[in-house]
C-alpha cells in the first residue's frame, strides 16, 4: 500500500485525522476557504441569519407601504417610488427568504454541520465540492441583492442569473448530501438506525437533485430569451400574426409549468428537513421513542414523492385538460396522508410523555401548531374548484407564510436552541427564549390569520352598497392590524438577536458532552464540537436513534454509540 495518498481535495480531513491536535493555520484557510463541514455549516447559518433579517426588513417596508403609501421609506421612495420598486421589493423578500433562509438554513446549515456527525462520518463525501457550493451560494446572494439596486430591466436578468447560480449550488450540495448519507456512514449505522433528521436531509437532497435541475433548465431558457433574444417564453414578433388569445395562453403556460414544477416541490424542500428536526426534538424532549418510526420514514418519502408530483395544482386557474385538475387535486390531497402520519406520530410521541417544556420544545410544538393551521387552509387550495373561484392573493399569502415560512422558521429556531451547546459550547438563555417564543407565536398568528380573512373577504359576494362599504372598512382596518402586528413581531425578533449575541459570548457554558441527554452521535463528542470531530476513535453504532425510556436501563436514554456491555442496568 503506497504510503501517502493525499490529494488536494482530501488534505483537510486526512491531515486532520492524522494530527488531531494541530489547528489549521491562517485566517483564510481556517474560516474562508475551509473544507471542514462544521465551518461550512456555520457559514451557511450566518448567511441565513443575515438574509432573514434583511428579508424581514423588506416585509416591514412592504406592510408599511401598503397601509400608509405616503410615508417616506428607504429603498422605495429613495429609488424612484414606482410600482416596479414595490415588485422588486417583493421579489427580493421572497427570494432571500425562500432560497437563502428556508432552503439554506435547515438543509445546508444544520445539515452540513450535523449530518456527518450524526452518521459518524469525519467529513462530507466531497469536501471541496462543499466549499465550492457555499461560495457559489454567496455569489448568488450578492447577485440577488445587487439585482434590487440596479435598473429593473437589467436587474431582472441579474436576478435570474443569481437564481440559476443558486440552483447550481444547491445541486452540488444535494449531491454531496446524498452521497455522504449513502456511502460514508459509520460502522453499524444501518438505514433503520439513521436519525430521522438524517432521513429528512437525505430525502430532501434527492428531491433537490431533481427539482433544481428543472429550475436551472427554466432559467437557462429565460436567460437565453433575455440575452440571446430567443422566444421560449416571450410572445413577441414571430408569433405576432397569431390571434392574441392563443399567444397569451400558450407561452406563459409553459413558464408556469416549468416554474411551478420547481416551486411547488420547493415548499417540500423547505419543509422536509423541518419535519425531521421537529420529530427529533419532540422525541428527545418527550423522553420517548418516535412513535411508528418506520412509518414516519415512509411518510417522509411520501412527502418527497407526492411533493414532486403536485406541480399541476397551481395551474387550476390557467386552463388545463379538464381531467388533469382532478389528478392533481387527488395528488395534492394525498399529501394529506403522509402529513397526517407525521402529525399522528408527533401526537403519539407526546402522549403520556414526561415533556420537558424548554424553548427548543416550545418551538417544535409551535411548528406543529402552525403546520396544522397552515395545512388546513391548504386543503381549500387543493380543491381545484375552490382554488380557482374563491381564493385570492391574500389567502394564499397567509397560507404559505404560515405553513412554509413561519413554521419552517420555528423548526429552525427549535433546532438552534437544541444544538447551540454543540455549535458554540454555550446555552441560549431560556427565559429570554421563552418570552421570544410566545411573542413570536402570538405575533405570527395575528399577522397571517387575518390575511386569510382578507383573502376570503375580497371574494365575498355582497351586492348592496352598504354591505360592501362595511366589508371595505373592515378590510382596511384589518390591513392596519396586520401591519401593526408585523411591526411588533419583527421587533420581538430583536429579543432573539440579543439573546443570540449575548449567549454567544456570555451564555451559560456547557461543560458536558450531552446536556440534553440525547441519543445521537453528535452528543458523544465534546461541546463545542472539537475541530477533529470524533478524534482518533472510530464511532461505532449499536442501536437505533431513539432509545428513550428503555425498560431495565438505569438512565432514561441509551446513546447510539454505547456498547451493550457499557449500558448501566437498572437495579
Amino acid at each position, binding site marked *: 500500500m503506497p504510503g501517502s495518498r493525499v*490529494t488536494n481535495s482530501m488534505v483537510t480531513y486526512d491531515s486532520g485525522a492524522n494530527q488531531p491536535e494541530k489547528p489549521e493555520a491562517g485566517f483564510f484557510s481556517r474560516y474562508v476557504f475551509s473544507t471542514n463541514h462544521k465551518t461550512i455549516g456555520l457559514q451557511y447559518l450566518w448567511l441565513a441569519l443575515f438574509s432573514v433579517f434583511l428579508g424581514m426588513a423588506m416585509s416591514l417596508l412592504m406592510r408599511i407601504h401598503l397601509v400608509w403609501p405616503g410615508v417616506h421609506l428607504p429603498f422605495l421612495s429613495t429609488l424612484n417610488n414606482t410600482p416596479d420598486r414595490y415588485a422588486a421589493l417583493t421579489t427580493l423578500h421572497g427570494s432571500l427568504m425562500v432560497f437563502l433562509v428556508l432552503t439554506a438554513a435547515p438543509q445546508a446549515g444544520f445539515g452540513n454541520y450535523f449530518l456527518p456527525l450524526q452518521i459518524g462520518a469525519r467529513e462530507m463525501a466531497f469536501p471541496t465540492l462543499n466549499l465550492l457550493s457555499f461560495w457559489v451560494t454567496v455569489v448568488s446572494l450578492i447577485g440577488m441583492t445587487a439585482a434590487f439596486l440596479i435598473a429593473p430591466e437589467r436587474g431582472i436578468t441579474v436576478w435570474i442569473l443569481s437564481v440559476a447560480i443558486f440552483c447550481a449550488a444547491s445541486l452540488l450540495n444535494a449531491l454531496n448530501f446524498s452521497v455522504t448519507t449513502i456511502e460514508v456512514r459509520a*460502522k453499524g449505522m*444501518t*438505514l433503520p438506525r439513521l436519525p430521522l433528521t438524517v432521513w429528512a436531509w437525505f430525502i430532501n437532497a434527492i428531491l433537490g*437533485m431533481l427539482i433544481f435541475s428543472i429550475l436551472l433548465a427554466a432559467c437557462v431558457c429565460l436567460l437565453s430569451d433575455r440575452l440571446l433574444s430567443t422566444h421560449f417564453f416571450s410572445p413577441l414578433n414571430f408569433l405576432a400574426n397569431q390571434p392574441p388569445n392563443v399567444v397569451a395562453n400558450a407561452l406563459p403556460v409553459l413558464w408556469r409549468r416549468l416554474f411551478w414544477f420547481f416551486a411547488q416541490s420547493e415548499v417540500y424542500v423547505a419543509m422536509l428537513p423541518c419535519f425531521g428536526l421537529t420529530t427529533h426534538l419532540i422525541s428527545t424532549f418527550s423522553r420517548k421513542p418516535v412513535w411508528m418510526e418506520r412509518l414516519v420514514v415512509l411518510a417522509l418519502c411520501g412527502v418527497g414523492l407526492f411533493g414532486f408530483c403536485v406541480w399541476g395544482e397551481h395551474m387550476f386557474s390557467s386552463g388545463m385538460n379538464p381531467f388533469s385538475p382532478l389528478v392533481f387535486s387527488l395528488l395534492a390531497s394525498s399529501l394529506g396522508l403522509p402529513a397526517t402520519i407525521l402529525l399522528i406520530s408527533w401526537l403519539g410521541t407526546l402522549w403520556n410523555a414526561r415533556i420537558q417544556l424548554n424553548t427548543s420544545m416550545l418551538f417544535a410544538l409551535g411548528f406543529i401548531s402552525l403546520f396544522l393551521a397552515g395545512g388546513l387552509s391548504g386543503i381549500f387550495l387543493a380543491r381545484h374548484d375552490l382554488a380557482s373561484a374563491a381564493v385570492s392573493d391574500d389567502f394564499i399569502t397567509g397560507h404559505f407564510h404560515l405553513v412554509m415560512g413561519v413554521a419552517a422558521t420555528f423548526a429552525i429556531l427549535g433546532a438552534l436552541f437544541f444544538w447551540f451547546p454543540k455549535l458554540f459550547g454555550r446555552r441560549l438563555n431560556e427565559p429570554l427564549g421563552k418570552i421570544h417564543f410566545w411573542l413570536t407565536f402570538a405575533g405570527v398568528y395575528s399577522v397571517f390569520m387575518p390575511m386569510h380573512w382578507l383573502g376570503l373577504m375580497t371574494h365575498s359576494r355582497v351586492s348592496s352598497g352598504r354591505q360592501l362599504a362595511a366589508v371595505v372598512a373592515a378590510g382596511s382596518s384589518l390591513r392596519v392590524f396586520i401591519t401593526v402586528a408585523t411591526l411588533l413581531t419583527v421587533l420581538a425578533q430583536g429579543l432573539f438577536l440579543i439573546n443570540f449575541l449575548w449567549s454567544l459570548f456570555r451564555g451559560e457554558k456547557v461543560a458536558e458532552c450531552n446536556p440534553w441527554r440525547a441519543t445521537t452521535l453528535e452528543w458523544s463528542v465534546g461541546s463545542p464540537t472539537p475541530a477533529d470531530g470524533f478524534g*482518533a476513535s*472510530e464511532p461505532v453504532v449499536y442501536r437505533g436513534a431513539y432509545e428513550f425510556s428503555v425498560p431495565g436501563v438505569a438512565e432514561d436514554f441509551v446513546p447510539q454509540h454505547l456498547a451493550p456491555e457499557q449500558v448501566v442496568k437498572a437495579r
Partner: protein
Amino acid sequence: MPGTTATPDIELIIENTGGGGGGRPPAGGDDGGDDGDYGRHRKRAPSPRRYSTGIAIALVSILMFFMALSSAFIVLRRGSDVWVTVHLPRILWLNTCVLLGSSFTLETARRRLSLADLTGFRKLWLVTTSLGFLFVAGQLIAWRQLVAQGVYIASNQASSFFYIFTGAHAIHLLGGVAALLYVSFRKFEKANILLSHAAEITSYYWHFMDGLWIFLLALLYLGK
C-alpha cells in the same frame, strides 16, 4: 484491499441482529469500509464507491435538466402552428458516428486495462479523447453551417431549441472530455483513486452523454 477491517465487520454483523437490522449493510462493509479510511493506522484511498454513487446521482440530475428542456420542446412544438422546420446539417450524422465510435474505443481501452496492457490502454484512451474533441468540433461546424444558411439562435423556436440542446450537450460533453484528459494525465500513484476506477467512472459519464445525444438527435429529428 487488505483484510484489516475483517474483525470489526464481523462484530458489526453480530450487532446487527440486536437492534433495528433489516436494512442493507452499512456502506463499505463489503469493500473494507469508507469510514476506516481516515483512521490513524489504516490510512488509504477512500473507496471509489462514493465517486460512482456521486456520478450516478449527478447523471439523474443532468437527465432531469434535459427532460425539462425536452418537455418544453414538446409543449411548444405541439402548441405552435407556425413551427419553422430546421433542416439538421448532415454532419450531425457523422458526429453521431464519431461519438458512438468513441464509446466503443473507450470500452476497448478499459478491456486493455483489465488485461494489464497499460500502453494499449493509453493509446485507445487517447483515441477516445481525440474523438471527443472531434465531436465537439463537428458540432461547431454544424453551427457554422446553420449560421451560413442564416439560421441563428433567435430565428425561430426550432432553431433556438437546436442551439440550446446542442450547446448544453456540448458543455456537458466537454466535462466528459475533461475527465478523459484527467485520466490520461493524472499520476495515479499519488491519487486517492485507482486508475481503473477513474476510468470506469469516466466511462459511465461518457456513455451517458452518448445516449443523451442519441435521444436529443431523435427528438430534434422527429420533432422537426
